[in-house]
């Protein structure tokens, strides 16, 4: 029977005097390969009974250069033992920075293919390797337990995974004040969650659906959900910390391995990353907000003037110019005079009304200055994202009349197309059969024919006019939509940037594993491989953003838009569908406070 032997790097590098006889002791739990725990002098081990799960795996006589390993060792895999206190670990699959329930696989959408590819028959079974990796991840803990069991061997071993800094932090953790501060922080977040939970539920209420309507409300909702999730994350992190610390207390290895068999690191570390990412992003947000606020306050007059010209020019003068020119044969195209002048009068009246009621007031320069200073102050307190979303809402409120015009002209165009297509069917002697969902031949009466023909001719002649109005207002609406999408993408970038994961990658690559690599080491006697950690690739970290960009491109830059434009179907920003990708690090249902309370008390008891 052949198996692999896992040999930690630091044991290779340790210097022993050459004429000592050395023995390598390994541990093998149920279903794992053997991992060498420690190398001891033969004199210590002699006479001592080594029980399972430990066993002797190799001997080196003094003066020999290589190890004589027991029979069956096929290959030796060297690895650098991860320090679990520094949160390093190996993982076969890349850790997911989004919640498993929200993981979106953009590549495979075919259900049948998923069924085949997830069937156990086609899997390469790597449970053994996974279990061995789990063992390796807790190498130092097992080493400590080994030394506890055989205290004789502990003196010659110099391995410890803690440095001075780690020991200081441990001391700090034991300090009572620290514990009380932690508890206080926890209870404060729980009380926050009491407020934010119902608020978030209300904002997401189906009937009002406020989140879809305003960007500010979406931002508030996001913050509420993040706050409500904080206590849960904190609990989960601390729960795992307590299990880790309780490790050396296990007397029997069966108990310990039971607890550790579940992939604790890959469950717990993403929570840790997510939690600190959120906190960091919020602080970043506030600092950006302060920068933005000070910038706005400093240049408030210039910005106010610019905004004044922009709003007046784009939302009022240009619109009025277009509407008037539509009534008077734009580009030399002869439109139907009555209809064009009627529609143009209607829209002009609405423009004048909206201008005099709110645009003029808002875009007056001193009002604008007041608004800018208010936004600047708010952004200092609540963050840049809040200020940006306020700006978006302001802008969409001011351009309400454009949206209104687009709605009217689009509906007219759509109805006209519909009626014309069904009258065209009548023209050819056919009718749409609703029961069979197809176009069938139908014998019409002569009065139906005449009337239908009359209406058809009228509609055909009126089509250019309606088309001219529809196209000009659609261009306005599309311009506004582009602005809105740009702003919202900026906000989502600020909200969900994977800053923490990126910095971790720079600082210590072994803390965010994205898989395993095995490298071949040249050697004479047996096969030697080196186990390396592949850090999470940057593209995977930005995967939600890539998905978001793809969705935006699919919704707004593809032939679908052209199709919708021609048919007269509405083009709007559907916030929920578009940005739900970015909520992937938050649970879909906010956690109930009672459950939280119960679990806290269970932990304490």
């Amino acid at each position, binding site marked *: 029977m052949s198996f692999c032997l896992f040999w930690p790097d630091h044991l290779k590098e340790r210097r022993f005097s050459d004429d000592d006889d050395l023995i390598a002791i390994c541990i093998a739990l149920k279903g794992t390969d053997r991992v060498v725990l420690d190398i001891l002098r033969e004199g210590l081990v002699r006479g001592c009974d080594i029980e399972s799960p430990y066993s002797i795996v190799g001997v080196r006589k003094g003066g020999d250069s290589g190890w004589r390993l027991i029979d069956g060792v096929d290959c030796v895999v060297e690895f650098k033992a991860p320090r679990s206190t520094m949160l390093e670990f190996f993982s076969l699959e890349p850790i997911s920075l989004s919640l498993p329930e929200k993981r979106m696989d953009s590549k495979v959408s075919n259900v049948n293919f998923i069924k085949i590819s997830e069937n156990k028959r086609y899997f390469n079974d790597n449970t053994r390797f996974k279990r061995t990796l789990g063992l390796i991840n807790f190498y130092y803990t097992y080493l400590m337990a080994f030394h506890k069991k055989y205290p004789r061997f502990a003196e010659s071993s110099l391995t410890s995974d803690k440095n001075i800094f780690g020991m200081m932090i441990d001391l700090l953790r034991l300090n009572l004040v620290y514990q009380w501060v932690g508890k206080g922080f926890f209870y404060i977040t729980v009380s926050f969650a009491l407020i934010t939970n119902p608020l978030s539920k209300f904002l997401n209420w189906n009937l009002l659906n406020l989140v879809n309507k305003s960007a500010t409300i979406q931002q508030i909702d996001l913050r509420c959900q993040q706050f409500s999730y904080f206590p849960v994350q904190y609990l989960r992190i601390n729960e795992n910390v307590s299990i880790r610390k309780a490790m050396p207390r296990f007397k029997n290895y069966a108990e310990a391995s039971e607890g550790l068999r579940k992939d604790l690191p890959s469950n717990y570390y993403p929570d840790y990353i997510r939690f600190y990412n959120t906190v960091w992003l919020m602080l970043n947000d506030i600092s950006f907000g302060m920068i933005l606020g000070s910038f706005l306050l400093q240049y408030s007059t210039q910005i106010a003037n610019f905004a004044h010209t922009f709003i007046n020019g784009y939302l009022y003068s240009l619109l009025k110019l277009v509407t008037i020119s539509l009534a008077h044969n734009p580009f030399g195209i002869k439109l139907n005079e009555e209809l064009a002048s009627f529609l143009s009068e209607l829209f002009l009246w609405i423009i004048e009304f909206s201008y005099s009621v709110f645009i003029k007031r808002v875009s007056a320069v001193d009002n604008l200055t007041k608004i800018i200073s208010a936004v600047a102050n708010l952004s200092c307190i609540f963050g840049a994202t809040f200020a940006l979303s306020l700006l978006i809402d302001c802008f969409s409120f001011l351009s309400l009349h454009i949206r209104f015009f687009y709605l009217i002209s689009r509906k007219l165009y759509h109805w006209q197309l519909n009626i014309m297509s069904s009258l065209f069917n009548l023209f050819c002697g056919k009718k749409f059969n609703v029961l069979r969902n197809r176009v069938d031949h139908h014998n019409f009466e002569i009065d139906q*024919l005449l009337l239908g023909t009359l209406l058809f*001719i009228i509609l055909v002649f009126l089509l250019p006019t309606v088309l001219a109005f529809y196209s000009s207002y659609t261009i306005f609406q599309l311009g506004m939509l582009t602005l809105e999408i740009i702003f919202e993408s900026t906000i989502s970038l600020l909200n969900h940037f994977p800053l923490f994961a990126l910095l971790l990658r720079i600082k210590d690559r072994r803390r965010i594993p994205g898989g395993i690599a095995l490298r071949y080491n040249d050697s004479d006697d047996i096969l030697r491989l080196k186990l390396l950690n592949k850090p999470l690739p940057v593209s995977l970290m930005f995967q939600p953003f890539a998905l978001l960009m793809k969705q935006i491109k699919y919704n707004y830059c593809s032939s679908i838009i052209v199709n919708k434009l021609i048919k007269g179907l509405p083009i709007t920003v559907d916030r929920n569908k578009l940005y739900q990708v970015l909520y992937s690090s938050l649970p879909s249902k906010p956690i109930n406070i009672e459950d939280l309370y119960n679990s806290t008390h269970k932990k304490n008891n």
Partner: protein
Amino acid sequence: MEKKPWKRLLWLKQDYPDNYTDPNFIKKAETFHKRLNFLNSPYKHESNYFKVRYEFFQFYQSILNVSSIFLIFAYIYYYKQDPLPLTIVVTVVVSCLLMSKKHDNPLFVRLLNLKSVIIITFAMLTLTPVLKSLSKTTASDSIWTLSFWLTLMYISALSNTKDKKSSNVSTNLLLAVVTALASRLSSTTEVFCFLYICIQVNVLLPNLIVPSYLLALISNIIVYAVITQILGWHYTILILSTFLLYIIVLPHWFIYWQINYRMLEDGDGRDEKDCLITSWDAKRPVLNC
């Protein structure tokens, strides 16, 4: 091993089973039918001269009907006459015809009962202002060109089959012509009367009247009289001579062409058993003896 294509021949041993159905069979059967129809076409015999002439004449009558649109338009627009008496006269005539034909043609009359008449009349009354303003802004020249082309399309879309299915293309084009022309008229009454008369003359009358030589003669006389009145007798003579040429000479030529030069509808002259010559050659060699 490739099989030779299946041939529709008896007593020939082929690689196919006895109940084999060739996929091309339906196509071949269709071409066979077409060829049969062509060979038995009534246009291929000199004795059918009168039949051909009659059909040519019917086509001529429909063109005459179309020209009536323009005549009425000229009456209203150019001569600035009040169209109301004319409308009333035509309406009375049509309704009399309708009443008298009630028992003869129940299928059609059922379609045109009082309710539908009222609906159509009132709908037209409502929509006339809209129709009037539809192409008001275009210049007159483009209106004349537009109506010319629409009339051409209308004539080509006219169908003269006995069982008229509700193919509405011709009515649509008629209405398009009327709409285009109606934008030149000045008052709503005129537009309404124009529309009304045109629809009656072109849509209703052909369905009600049994074409007989007497009626054709009457309509011809009316039209030519009006043309003489408007354009002068030179034009009348010209048109009359064209018509006579058309009605006397053309059928002979048509039959001659059908017999000798009629193009086969499918280009399938490559069947070596079915015909020796291609479709563009005369079927019987034409010898200049």
